[in-house]
């Protein structure tokens, strides 16, 4: 069998049904040529590994789990100390500390007991723009932008929200990076693979 003939048969074999339970073994003629041909052999081996799948399971280096345990140390995860690794902002801005929201109940902010004022604060020193986007503003990114008047990296806004309702929200950084509030006590799936923070007041 020439390499050209082998290639044609190889393609025919791979083009067959690969559904679960299919026989992963290849025709003897493919095997025989593949074993003796340095050009075709690696392709056959690669195909066999991919067809079988589990053979590509990669063993972890010895002692990796022990090294990780040692490096991690011990302790109890505490929500208030959570740091959110920030992955979308370049170099120096890799970390964002989310301080979360501060609920501020203020008498003047109440409207006959129907609304209360909620103060949102987010520390994002490298952000150019921060919005809080939630169901109360119909997820409009332009509706409620936070401000950082003193330039200390803490963005803030006060918003009147209806009392007795559940409010879902996320922060939007620079118009493209959505993050839930890591300090919020409740989170729900947002239907897009992420989570929304939940505020019940």
């Amino acid at each position: 069998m020439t390499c050209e003939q082998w290639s044609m048969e190889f393609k025919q074999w791979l083009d067959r049904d690969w559904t679960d339970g299919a026989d992963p073994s290849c025709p003897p003629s493919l095997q025989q040529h593949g074993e003796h041909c340095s050009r075709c052999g690696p392709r056959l081996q690669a195909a066999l590994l991919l067809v079988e799948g589990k053979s590509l399971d990669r063993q972890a280096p010895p002692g990796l789990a022990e090294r990780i345990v040692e490096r991690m140390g011990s302790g109890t995860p505490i929500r208030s100390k959570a740091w959110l690794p920030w992955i979308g902002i370049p170099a120096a801005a890799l970390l964002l500390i989310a301080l979360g929201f501060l609920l501020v109940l203020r008498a003047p902010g109440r409207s006959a007991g129907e609304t209360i004022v909620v103060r949102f604060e987010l520390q994002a020193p490298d952000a150019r723009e921060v919005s809080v986007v939630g169901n109360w503003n119909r997820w409009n990114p332009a509706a409620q932008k936070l401000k950082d008047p003193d330039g200390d990296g803490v963005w803030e806004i006060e918003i009147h929200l209806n009392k007795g309702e559940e409010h879902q929200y996320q922060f939007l950084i620079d118009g493209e990076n959505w993050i839930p509030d890591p300090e919020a006590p409740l989170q729900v799936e947002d239907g897009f693979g992420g989570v929304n923070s939940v505020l019940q007041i």
Partner: protein
Amino acid sequence: MTEESQKHKDAEDLWAVQATLKGNADAFETIVRRYTPVLYSLAYRLLGEGEEAEDAVQEILEKAFKNLPRFRINKRFFPWLYTIGVNHLRSLERRRRRRSRLRIVSSEPGRILESIASEQGNPVEQRELREGERLAQQALEALRVEYREVFILRQIQDLSVQEVAEVLGIPEGTVKTYLHRARKGMIDFLTGSGWE
């Protein structure tokens, strides 16, 4: 794994999570030891780099540890952990791709065969096995990341279609579609014109 042993494993996971949250300093170690091998395999196949995969496993487990208070105890732990893992690996992969565009050029199949041919002193079969795995990894890396994730989780790590859908947050039908496209992409890679 049988359904019963899976349930037993899930129950052990939940015990470890609850114990960790209650302050049992050693409980999370159970999680680390149990999931380091599968997370490493996942990271290695998604990133294609052993050293980077090691660091990634630690970062994933640290992330899971810190986010443990947000884990809902009525859910299974391992899809939750896998979701954290996949999301973290996606971010690393994005950075890695930006860093290493030139590497893609140098991994053109024909050139690899030449380098195999130039090696001396290795038994042919061993060389082909090693190169076969390298090519399999290249075929994986040539896929769109969505297809690769599905292929790795379903075909290599043996998660069910339902579990893959849960981990990636996509419908089961999409998992099947991506799996089909992944296989087609790898066939195209291995039978492509670069080999003729």
